[in-house]
């Protein structure tokens, strides 16, 4: 066995200044004594660093620390060195030195890089030689000495209580699993594989959905009908359509040409083909249709084409009629001044065929002159008489009237009223002067000889005439204005042999009015349409009239020259071109699909491999733990039972390792004190007991697996353990581990004394190192404890 015989610390944590050496020699028990803060744990850290190249508990704090100096250096400017010396059973020594690498930059000082800071050398004959950590594996005959050291050579302080305090079941399980071997690296591999599997599954899902998408969008069975090698050059079928007017299928680059768009393009080509085939019929039919649709012109033609040449005569006649009508109204007013002023006397006499208009004019002028001369009260009487006469005339018309219109008196009968009015007229006349009487007489003469005669002539004329309406007149005016179009229509109808004589109105105004015009226009339209004749057999089978019209409008811009000169062979070329394009795009998609399917297959293989590897890694981790547990479960039961003397009412029971699934592969592990329970001791034991269980587990691992390295480091185990557990631990260490070197730290002097006492009783070599004083003591059996017993005995006595 190899024993740790000496450690020298230089500039390490609290051990600044001169290098400090602790001589463990070949003592079976070395007690590191001293109050907290004097570097008990630092000694363990130094040994851990020297042997493993890192300090594991630093990693726990990693996220909270980001130091710019070296974390373990006492003085950041100086080198940090740990020298460690071993001795074997034959007294052969080997010395190793762990020190800081030279020239460390600041970035390397982070705790995450801590292990990279250090290098290891072996000192042979005072000369240091660079080695690597595998030299230690070889020296201690271990497959991984760092792992062994952490697993069963070093029991860290409070290691147990840390996971005890955690409420997280997962964290507890993780901590517990650490006690069953170092599987962290392999677990990381497993985690990475699991992560890869997730990514592969997700990528496979994506690709699957892309494949499904392509299959649903394209009918790839068409690909088999592909006529390969037929590549047509692009030419414009409709070169006159440029820019946005050009249909998508006629452009040099046809975008998104899927099956649907190809079919649409071919349908359009068929329409153009049909239009081109039947273009003569189409254009002819279109002409008649358009002619038949000229409704307004046809109506004008029906109503007025015969009469509009007399338009001017009709207009003049109408003006004369208006003159008579207007004159009649003026005469009816009876106002001589108004008549004299507004009546177009000469024109009226001329038109009515009357003689002597001068006589009329001079007569009215003289009456007006007489009237102008009368004035004062007499003129008022004369005015009253005028109105009296007017009233009398109107009352005479109303034969049932009995009440006076002026005073409201009811005379009982019309005759009485009439008489009263006449009487009143006589009375009024008596009131007139001479001049007024002359005037009255002159006026009455004028009215009966001139006004009356002229009025009668007007009335007679008007009663003989039926004047045209304003609408009739304006329509005729419109017809006259459209005379060129009407004449063209007349000629065209004649050239087409369409008869209209029986339809066109002969008179003005049109007899039968609007309804006649509308009815006859329908007949003429129908006669025009009937000239189209029967359509070619397939014409309407292929497409409707509106489709031909739209095709003509959209693709030929209503230009019959373009249609007539159109060469339909370009359509066959275009169809072939589009089909070739479509099939070539289909080929691209098929290639893409092929690629995706290849990737899918690859992912399937990858997933299968990954799943298999996960199974293997998982299995190996489980088997490793299972074997480890199987190896140690008897010693673990015995050691835990020995330490936990008081447990289960002192019956003496150990702790079982329970794998609830019980297979070859460990999936889940619990520590139970009674096989039948499923409750882990973490939930049933005190922290001191758990501390004891962890020590028992570590000692069991050490007993089974430790090969050549004898030393076990135990950092202050008694912080939570009671005295009975403590004494049991001492018994276990000094009996079952008498071949091991135990380096144990404690801050309690009585514990140190008790351990010393027990070991010396068993003839074990013991050394006490007081780290506060930095002094080493070798207690002897013969002096210290015999004296203590004596004094106890005497005081008892």
């Amino acid at each position: 066995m190899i024993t740790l015989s000496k450690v020298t610390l230089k500039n390490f944590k609290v051990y600044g200044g001169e290098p400090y050496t602790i001589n463990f020699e070949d003592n079976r028990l070395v007690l590191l004594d001293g109050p907290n803060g004097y570097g008990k744990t630092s000694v363990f850290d130094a040994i851990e660093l020297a042997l493993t190249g890192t300090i594991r508990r630093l990693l726990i704090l990693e996220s909270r620390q980001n130091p710019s100096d070296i974390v373990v250096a006492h003085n950041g400017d100086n080198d940090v060195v740990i020298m460690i010396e071993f001795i074997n059973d034959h007294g052969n020594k080997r010395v190793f030195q762990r020190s800081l690498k030279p020239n460390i930059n600041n970035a390397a000082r982070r705790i995450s890089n801590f292990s990279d800071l250090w290098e290891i050398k072996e000192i042979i004959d005072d000369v240091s030689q660079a080695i690597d950590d595998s030299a230690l594996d070889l020296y201690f005959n271990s497959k991984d000495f760092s792992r062994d050291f952490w697993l069963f050579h070093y029991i860290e302080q409070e290691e147990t209580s840390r996971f005890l305090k955690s409420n997280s079941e997962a964290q507890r399980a993780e901590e517990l699993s650490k006690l069953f071997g170092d599987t962290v690296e392999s677990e990381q591999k497993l985690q990475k594989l699991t992560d890869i599997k997730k990514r592969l599954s997700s990528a496979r899902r994506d690709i699957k959905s892309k494949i499904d998408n392509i299959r649903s969008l394209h009918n790839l069975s068409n690909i088999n009908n592909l006529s390969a090698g037929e590549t047509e050059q692009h030419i414009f079928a409709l070169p006159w359509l440029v820019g946005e007017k050009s249909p998508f299928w006629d452009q040099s680059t046809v975008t998104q040409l899927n099956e649907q768009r190809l079919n649409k393009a071919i349908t359009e080509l068929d329409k153009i083909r049909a239009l081109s085939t039947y273009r003569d019929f189409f254009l002819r039919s279109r002409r008649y249709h358009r002619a038949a649709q000229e409704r307004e012109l046809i109506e004008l033609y029906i109503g007025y084409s015969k009469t509009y040449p007399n338009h001017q005569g009709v207009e003049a006649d109408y003006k004369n009629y208006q003159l008579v009508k207007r004159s009649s109204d003026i005469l009816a007013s009876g106002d001589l001044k108004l008549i004299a002023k507004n009546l177009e006397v000469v024109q009226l006499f001329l038109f009515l065929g009357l003689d002597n208009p001068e006589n009329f004019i001079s007569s009215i002028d003289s009456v007006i002159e007489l009237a102008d001369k009368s004035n004062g009260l007499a003129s008022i009487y004369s005015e009253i008489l005028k109105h009296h006469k007017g009233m009398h005339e109107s009352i005479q018309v109303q034969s049932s009237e009995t009440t006076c219109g002026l005073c409201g008196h009811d005379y009982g009968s019309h005759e009485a009223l009439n008489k009263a009015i006449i009487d009143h007229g006589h009375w009024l006349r008596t009131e007139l002067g001479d001049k007024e009487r002359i005037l009255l007489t002159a006026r009455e003469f004028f009215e009966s000889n001139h006004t009356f005669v002229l009025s009668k002539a007007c009335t007679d004329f008007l009663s003989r005439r039926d004047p045209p309406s304003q609408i009739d007149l304006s329509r005729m005016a419109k017809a006259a204005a459209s005379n060129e179009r009407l004449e063209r229509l007349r000629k065209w109808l004649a050239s087409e042999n369409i008869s209209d004589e029986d339809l066109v109105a002969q008179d003005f105004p049109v007899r039968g009015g609007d309804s006649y015009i509308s009815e006859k226009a329908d007949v003429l339209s129908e006669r025009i349409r009937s000239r189209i004749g029967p359509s070619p057999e397939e014409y309407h089978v292929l497409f409707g009239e509106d489709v031909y019209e739209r095709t003509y409008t959209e693709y030929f811009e209503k230009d019959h020259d373009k249609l007539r000169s159109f060469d339909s062979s370009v359509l066959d070329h275009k169809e072939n071109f589009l089909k070739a394009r479509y099939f070539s795009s289909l080929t691209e998609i098929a290639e893409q699909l092929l690629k995706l399917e290849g990737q899918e297959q690859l992912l399937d293989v990858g997933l299968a491999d990954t799943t298999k590897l996960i199974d293997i890694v998982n299995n190996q981790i489980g088997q490793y733990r299972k074997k480890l547990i199987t190896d140690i479960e008897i010693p673990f039961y015995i050691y835990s039972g020995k330490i936990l003397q008081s447990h289960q009412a002192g019956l003496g029971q150990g702790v079982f390792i329970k794998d609830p699934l019980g297979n070859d592969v460990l999936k889940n592990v619990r520590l139970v004190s009674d096989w039948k329970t499923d409750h882990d001791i973490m939930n049933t034991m005190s922290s001191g007991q758990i501390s004891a269980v962890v020590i028992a587990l570590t000692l069991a691992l050490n007993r089974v697996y430790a090969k050549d390295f004898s030393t076990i480091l135990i950092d202050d185990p008694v912080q939570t353990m009671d005295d009975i557990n403590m004494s049991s631990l001492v018994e276990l260490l000094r009996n079952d581990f008498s071949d091991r070197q135990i380096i144990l730290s404690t801050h309690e002097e009585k514990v140190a004394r008790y351990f010393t006492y027990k070991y010396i009783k068993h003839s074990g070599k013991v050394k006490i190192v007081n780290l506060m004083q930095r002094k080493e003591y070798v207690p002897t059996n013969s002096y210290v404890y015999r004296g203590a017993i004596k004094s106890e005995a005497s005081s008892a006595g």
Partner: protein
Amino acid sequence: MKNSITIFGGAIVNDILNANGGRDFLDFKYQKKRNAIYDLTIRIALKLPFLIYSPREQKLENLSKQIDDAIPSDKFEKFNQMLTAEWTDENVLEHVESIWRKKA
């Protein structure tokens, strides 16, 4: 065996506790059948500190190496490639191509 015991010491304790290749311990653990001598011996071993149980020394394997050995040789290169590669959402197909395309 009980009649032949003349000296009760560590060797006897070892023989009894490890009997039947450890199956007696499992029976004791699972409480399947009562074995008075086993029960007594294990309690004595717990109670008497000077009775020392010496388990057989075992070799603790290197798990990483065991895993490597367990992986079929045709998968081993892929296994290492998978673990070495940095996997992101974007480069999955790239890695898949480079790891599996060659032999697929």
